[in-house]
């Protein structure tokens, strides 16, 4: 994501700095070594990593913003853009791959008109591919929020999506 695009999302969300302090100080002892888990906690709070929260975190634990940006872009769970109300994780692990996970993925991309890592315009869905959630016996698997949809066929995708607002 470009610097300009990052700036655009600045006022997308209001940051509760007291809550942020709680996460950084209370839960993780303001410790640099806990950076990844702090970022996970921030993402749980806002559904993505808002830039102002990251700037605040940088000064708070004394790590340059560049390093935080490095970590946030290195690990695949982190998102610097706001994500949709429903997160679709399509498993593209080997077991799902050989059982036709790609066809399900193609269908999802076709229906939602978005690609991997993107969010629909109405913010209803974000599509993310993951490599193996360990439910190989149920492959191909699609996880939407916390619900697991196993042994899903590409012709069943549309019906499943209807359940989510």
């Amino acid at each position: 994501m470009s610097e300009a695009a990052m700036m655009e999302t600045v006022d997308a969300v209001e940051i509760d700095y007291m809550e942020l302090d709680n996460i950084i100080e209370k839960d993780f002892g303001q410790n640099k070594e806990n950076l990844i888990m702090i970022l996970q906690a921030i993402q749980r709070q806002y559904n993505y990593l808002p830039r102002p929260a990251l700037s605040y975190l940088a000064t708070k634990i004394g790590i340059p913003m560049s390093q935080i940006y490095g970590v946030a872009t290195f690990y695949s769970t982190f998102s610097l853009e706001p994500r949709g109300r429903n997160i679709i994780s399509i498993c593209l692990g080997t077991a799902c791959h050989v059982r036709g996970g790609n066809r399900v993925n193609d269908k999802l991309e076709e229906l939602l008109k978005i690609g991997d890592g993107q969010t629909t315009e109405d913010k209803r869905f974000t599509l993310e591919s993951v490599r193996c959630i360990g439910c190989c016996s149920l492959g191909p698997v699609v996880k939407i929020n916390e619900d697991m949809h196993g042994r899903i066929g590409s012709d069943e995708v549309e019906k499943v999506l209807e359940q989510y607002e």
Partner: protein
Amino acid sequence: MKIQSLEDLKKISQTYEKQIYAPEGIKVNIGMASCGIAAGAQAALNKALENYKDNPGVEICQTGCIGFCEQEPLVEIMATDKPRVLYQNITEDKIIDAIEGYMAGDFSKNKKWILGQLKDPRSLLDDDLENPLNGVEPIEDIPFMEDIPFYSTQVKIAMRNCGYIDPDCIEEYFAKKGYIAFLQALKNNKAAEIIDTVKASGLRGRGGGGFPAGIKWATCAKHHGDRYIICNADEGDPGAYMDRSILEGDPHSVIEGMLIAALGIGSKQGYIYVRNEYPLAVKRLVTAIKQAEAYGLLGENIAGSDFSFKITISTGAGAFVCGESTALMSSLEGKVGRPRAKYVHTVEKGFRDSPTNLNNVETYANVPAILLKGADWYTGMGTEHSKGTKVFSLVGKINNTGLVEVPMGISLRDIIFDIGGGIPKKKDFKAIQTGGPSGGCIPEQFLDLPVDFDELAKVGSIMGSGGMIVMDQDTCMVDLARYFVDFLKDESCGQCNPCREGLKQMLDILTDICDGKGKEGDIELLEEIGAMVQKFSLCGLGTSAPNPVLTSILYFRNEYEAHIRDKKCAAGVCKPLFHYEIDADTCTGCTLCAKKCPQNVITGEKKKPHVIDQGNCIKCGICYESCKFDAIKIC
């Protein structure tokens, strides 16, 4: 209560032994690992709890992975006067019927739900107990679990308690001889003896490398500084989920293994680095650590001794490369997970530049059993250089998907055809991929190979963490190689050229081949780049990354050639290289394909052969999958 001695532990165990083996009334164990829950176990559990909330004679409990994932949700029902029965596919709508049928002693009505009955529920560590099922009359016409091919060759050590105990209940782990090995070792207070036993057992690291655990422990113990014990639970190999199952089904076996390692090596602090994608494993670990702390088995002055040990959980954030030990340690320090060259080993300078011992989940889970039963017992299983058992996850195109723990040295054929029940829909076996994305594809001619660390290496593959992905005639080997390289290119940390650039070039060539743009010389070029990446990459991810490509070229060169020269993909995977045709002689005109076709390009009259309009077909494969008469052919 803080446990001070073995006697304290035994007192608690005795009460819970009864709960595990001889419950009063009826006990129902529902397999509540992630995959069980995904298949509907949570709903079944809730339903049963609600239904029997006023009936103290029926106890509804959760347990971990029972192993036979294909038939989830799995439910085991037991009483003292009847055999223990394992039921399969017990969803919300069936659970009450199953329990009522068991209570009434009526097994004929629900016979098709029954997987089998147990002869002996004891684990390998429980042989001093009397078999609680002695004297119980077996049920007629129901097979014994011990005779069912899926279970008969299995020997459970690492997974000894999975599916038998409630993972959220430390006392049930006590009752399964838990923490005895540790407390005995603590009282003897001879660190060197612990390490010698692990060395003598020949236990090799189960995470992939297969380095002898005892030697690692001994080397780490020699270096001075604050030593750390790390458990690698960043199980990233797609298709491998044994570590998740152990953590979800028996977290204390891992904690006890780490405690023993800490005692042997001399460490005060341990870390468990778990994948973020495994929320249930994290939750059960947190509970387990709290319980162990409450009993004084973790923390300061454990069991009244001067030994102290703490365990902290750290979650990963979705980076495959963090399964590599140096990358994992860097990630634990809150940094980007990039591996470093290992000219200085992590046992000398690892986490925080201190001596660090890192093993994976399955390795630690084996340790308490080895200490309790002795190294000789452990070396009695397995092959010359690979002792004990290994857990494999059998997935892909296989009838009995599941987790199996078998002695090392068993043949691939036995695993696939006896335990795994062969290939679904009577299709032909093509290859088995072992060792995750860095492993190799093994063709049929090597199926009688005994599975151990060294034999798999001889045919160009690796043991890895134990994922086994079975492939049939519908799997395209070129596409699969491209899949793995695509995965590894994404997961490459990008700091060394051979891996970052080499994999990208290999991916481009493979994508061209799959798109029908392959050229003469591509295969040789892939071999050349592959050899370079293998030789010059910095870490294990890079040096093993070309394995799937090189082994598939070695054993399936003809498929590559068919893609490049004839522009054909016989498996029907690479879309530009095949089309579907309906065989007029086999088609019965049932109209199913025409109804299912999302493009509406299949036409034909009822009971007459149908035709596909090739121009508008998108090759989605729905007709091919749904045809009941195999009338749709890949051409």
